[in-house]
């Protein structure tokens, strides 16, 4: 499928150079797709349509293939996220240890639905598939850092901290 969006639409030559280096050092261009997506997500906050098509063109994959990957892996965000992303594991071990309560608590605090941006742009709460910390259930990822076991009190501390940060003048 041809796409009307090109790599140049990223409008960031340093980023494009970094992405091209990632593709160049991979054995086949398609193998660099995960690294390319993470780099794009770090730089732009999430994978928007421009980033999606750029990733497709850099790796020689079709945009559909890249979208298949983005929608399958929950670490890749296809919608804008808050400054802090809270990924709460809701797979079987964490579910049994009370992940649903944590999810409900965090969502209520954020004031918006799961996956949306709340607390004046400070927070996004998303459920997540197993992160392999079943021994520390219920576990979660706070801005990519694993934490667990987490209880309502420690979760509330994070949330209050972020809320306080959100109100600080920048």
């Amino acid at each position: 499928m041809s796409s009307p969006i090109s790599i140049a639409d990223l409008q960031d030559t340093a980023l494009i150079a970094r992405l091209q280096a990632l593709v160049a050092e991979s054995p086949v261009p398609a193998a660099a797709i995960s690294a390319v997506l993470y780099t794009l997500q770090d730089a732009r906050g999430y994978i928007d349509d421009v980033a999606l098509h750029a990733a497709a063109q850099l790796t020689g994959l079709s945009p559909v293939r890249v979208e298949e990957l983005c929608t399958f892996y929950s670490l890749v965000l296809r919608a804008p996220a808050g400054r802090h992303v809270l990924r709460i594991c809701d797979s079987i071990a964490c579910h049994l240890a009370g992940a649903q309560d944590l999810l409900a608590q965090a969502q209520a605090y954020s004031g918006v639905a799961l996956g949306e941006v709340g607390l004046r742009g400070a927070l996004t709460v998303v459920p997540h598939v197993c992160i392999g910390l079943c021994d520390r259930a219920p576990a979660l990822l706070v801005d990519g850092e694993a934490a667990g076991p987490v209880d309502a009190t420690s979760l509330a501390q994070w949330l209050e901290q972020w809320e306080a940060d959100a109100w600080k003048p920048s």
Partner: protein
Amino acid sequence: MKRIFYLDGQPVPFTSGQNVLEAAIAAGMARQIPYFCYHPALGSLGACRQCAVKIYPHDDKHPPRVTMACLLPASDHLQLATVDQEVHTEHRKIIELLMLNHPLDCPVCDEGGQCHLQDMTVQTGHAVRRYSGPKRTYRDQDLGPLVHQEMNRCITCYRCVRFYQDTAQGDDFGVFGSRDRVYFGRLEDGPLESPFSGNLVEVCPTGVFTDKVFRHDYARVWDLQQGPSVCPHCAVGCNTLPGARLGTLRRVRARHHPEINPHFLCDRGRYGFRYVTAAERPVRARLHGVHSRQDAVLRQVATRLQEGRSGFLGSPREDVQSNLALFALADCLHAPFAALSSPWMEALAQQCMALPQAPTLNDVEMADHLIVLGDLGGVAPMAELAARQALRHGARLTVLASRPTALAEAGDYRPTRPSALPDLVTGLAEDACLQGSRRPVILAAAETLGPAGVHALRKTLARLPANARAGVFQNSPNLFGAAYFAADGHTVRLQHALRQREIDHLLCLAADPLGSDWGAGIWRSLAPGLQGVTVLDMVDTDTVRAAETVLPMAAFPERDGLFINYEGRIQAFAPVYRREAQVPSWQENTRGFPAAAGGQMHPLGPPTPQYWLGRLAELLDIVKPWQERLTFYQRFLCPIAPRPDHPGILLDDALRARFEIAAAPAAAPVGTEDWELDLFRWHGGEALADAAAELQSLAPSRGLRLNADVDASFATLSGPCGRLRLPVLPIVGMVAGVAALDQEGFAQLGLHPGEAVQIQWETVS
């Protein structure tokens, strides 16, 4: 030795490599094993967990266990059971889970009555839904004019994406998400781009993908009249199953042919049938452009023929009998006859007929090295699909074409000027790319290759190993059948007679000499010498509009006949339904046929060409000699005509060998500085399919396709028969100095692929 295993104590024969489910289906025992994700062409996946059987190991160490039949290789004396409590529970529970989110909309679903999910649900006895929670729902996409999507019905068998991405190698359709929120669709709304998108309708075991064209004029499948037919839209001759109701054709589906199209059909074959229901289709006889009584029109044609100044023109898009009937009539009247509208096409037909060892599409799939000349997918999409299957099996592919076609992107693309093809083909036998291949297959777009190229291909084939195969394709269904009795300078003679004013009337059978047939430019320059033109046709063409008398014909699913495909395979098609004429005014049409007097309430649709030609023979008092000749020619060409559901009989090699002319046909020299023309076709374009509105809404825009380096907005082409101004469409990667043009453009200019052309450029800022 016959190999068998046992299913519920019944012996089931199998061949090595088959799995248990495949063998059980082949043996007609599919009722015992329900299944979803398995498809004979897509293979086993083991995703749906539906096809459980219990296996009893031969040793005493292992207890019996439940396993998936589609993943279990069949082996000798395997003991399997489905009449078992555990197996039955598995069947029942899996279907209950699959039905969890499925809407209860069978009464309004297009798939109802032909739904695999419906059949399997009934078969396993699941009748009551215990789940009462909310169902998973999706927003549907608009997938264009051919396929309708209803994602809520999905049971995630992955058949669609396996077909689209793996078999058809399309890249604009995929599977998104994970867990219980999996979505099959495109990145955004828009028409599916694959030439095989219509097969989603057939591979989907439920109503997620349904036929959008059928939807406009829907009938339940049990109400359809269906019968074996052959696709008339290209030389491959895929077997089809048209379905009609109340005298109108509603849909076309693929019919199993083991060697040509076991399961699939291209979109041209599936949706091109709408020429039958097009509003412009001539369905009533016309005299001087006005609807008239059949008798009056026939009398006018007979008067013309009696004058003895008539010529006859057949067509490769008509079947064998109609062309022979026309030839026999011309023979009786000692009038000039040609089957093809241009001497160039005649030479091409001769060369194609002389080319031996055509591969079946099965052979193409088994090839280990493919060489493709020209844009195969634009001419015969199903041949391209077969080539793609060979690629999946690890075949190497070399594409010689003037532009990077869809197939070229999947292999080694060698940019080639069409005029250089004959020399390149001659050199293929020594080419390094063919060394070491055991089953090489060469596939070509006949018109791009040209007569000289096909001749060179025959000479090359003689120097290749005996198991090498070569097939050439064009997009009319019956080139061999039409041209057999008229491939020897007949067109030149016919045109000469017209030029010398020996004839002043032309009787055309499904030919469009004043429109877009090859050589139309010359015919148009000769047209002032014509007092009248008579056309028998089933689509509205320029010639039909210009004709003095028009005799409408039954479309292919409305009659029987024979086509001879690119291999020389004679295949028969049967009448599927009887068209009832669309009655514009009750009074007008019934006046001549009062019902009380035993007449017909609704006059029948257009008759067959043989009927018209027979009536003309009657009026001219030559019925007996006409019939004798017709019978003789037909016995000569195909002594045993196959039945409509027969896989076909190959044309006798001795008959084809008569066309082996040693001398190479002359090709016009092209300088390296000259602009030369190549043929552009798209997968939905063909004389009949061009009248199918839904398919044509996807047609690419008309223009002159050339290298993106050319800086011009419009081009004016000059040929021997006229000039043509077209917008310039840049193509990245196209060979410099080559411009691709559609057949209509060639007809207007009076040129052929691989010939030089004068181009004037215009730049509009």
